[in-house]
């Protein structure tokens, strides 16, 4: 990975470090949304175990999406985004750096709290492990697809638009990720799901940064 990628990544991490509250809000959102489901469907352990993987995956997705519309916002507002895109430095590395920073700040904390929520949903320990592994692969996909979405919706009012655009594209990750946890609980195993999830991650890595870079240029013209 190039020099520019690392400098963008470190810069974003430093900036995020100064605004401590943001990633905490995402974590709280994850916890709260997950907790709504037992309140909505009832607390029977078997039911919660059944819906747990799907619910936690959806909640993690939404929590992660919250922060995506602002991915380029601050830099856009003070003009530094335009500088960076116009400069000879690689826009693709810029996008990758930002997506990586987003994942580290907003994705990883979700992984850390997921086991606790898994216990709330009565998931057995091997399922919780697979849940964390699947989220570990799913959250970077979301950061990557979300970067493309954020680039397309740069400067537009209404953060919901980004969510609307990205969610359908993210569905395969949801299916494979939640399916992996289901597979472990059903005894059929998670390998197939996780491999497919990994393949989707690979495809996202190959496609999303370039589309995001092109979208940034289109949005900034």
């Amino acid at each position, binding site marked *: 990975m190039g020099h520019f990628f690392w400098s963008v990544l470190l810069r974003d991490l430093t900036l995020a470090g100064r605004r401590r509250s943001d990633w905490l809000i995402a974590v709280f959102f994850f916890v709260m949304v997950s907790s709504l489901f037992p309140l909505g469907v009832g607390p029977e352990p078997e039911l919660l175990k059944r819906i747990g993987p799907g619910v936690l995956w959806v909640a993690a997705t939404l929590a992660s999406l919250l922060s995506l519309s602002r991915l380029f916002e601050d830099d856009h507002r003070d003009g530094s985004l335009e500088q960076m895109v116009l400069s000879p430095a690689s826009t693709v590395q810029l996008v990758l750096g930002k997506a990586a920073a987003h994942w580290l700040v907003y994705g990883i904390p979700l992984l850390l709290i997921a086991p606790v929520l898994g216990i709330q949903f009565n998931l057995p320990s091997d399922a919780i492990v697979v849940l964390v592994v699947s989220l570990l692969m799913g959250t970077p996909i979301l950061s990557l697809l979300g970067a*493309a979405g954020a680039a397309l919706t740069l400067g*537009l009012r209404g953060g919901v*638009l980004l969510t609307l*655009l990205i969610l*359908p*594209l993210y569905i395969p990750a949801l299916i494979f990720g939640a399916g992996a946890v289901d597979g472990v609980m059903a005894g059929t195993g998670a390998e197939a799901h996780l491999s497919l999830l990994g393949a989707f991650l690979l495809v996202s890595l190959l496609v999303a940064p370039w589309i995001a870079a092109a979208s940034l240029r289109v949005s900034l013209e």
Partner: protein
Amino acid sequence: MNFYHYASPSTFYHLAGKVIPWAAWTAAILTVVGLYIGFFVAPTDFQQGEAYRIIFIHVPAAWMGMLIYLAMAFWGAIGLAFNARLPFLMMRALVPTGAMFTFVALWTGAAWGKPMWGAWWVWDARLTSTLILLFLYIGTVALWSAIDDVKRSDRAGALLTLIGVINVPIIYFSVIWWNTLHQGSTVSFTHAPKMATTMLQGMMIMTLAAWAYAIAVALVRVRRLILERERKTEWVNEILSEGS
């Protein structure tokens, strides 16, 4: 055939004007023939009785919804690659028809599912994929409406459709995967009954009819869009002055 010649809006405008009546009449005639076959030639189905006749609309609509999205992605890619205006107009002209067919596919899917399997909605792989396709259409329209600048709007929509089209096979595969795992119901549109030749013929003809219809409608729309976008040019001014 000089490709760039047809990329000029005025040439395309007049060419489209000539194609539209042909496409429209083809659509009308094929529809009549297709419906005739569907209702008066194709026999009663052994398993599904008469309700299966919905497929003469459901399947063509589903295919067209999908095909039109691919066409949109194609035109978007051409517009981005050649930096031309016309392909983006073609994209915009196709969207309402594509969304309409997708909606019809969902509606007829529900109407077929209810008598067959007792539920208005079943999470069958194909119906679910069609629903997601509708979300993609809506997303593209939402993005277009949110952007004021026309050039940015065109390109953003094209990029979104490109990322969508790359994703569509993945989404379709994942939904089939999901569906085969959750074998709760034995419902599947993919396990359609073995079809008599006449049934297949009817379906094919209706699909061609839908295709001709889509071409006619998209060309009508694109002509209007061309007039709007190119209104400052002389050839458009002449057309408007003629008041025809």
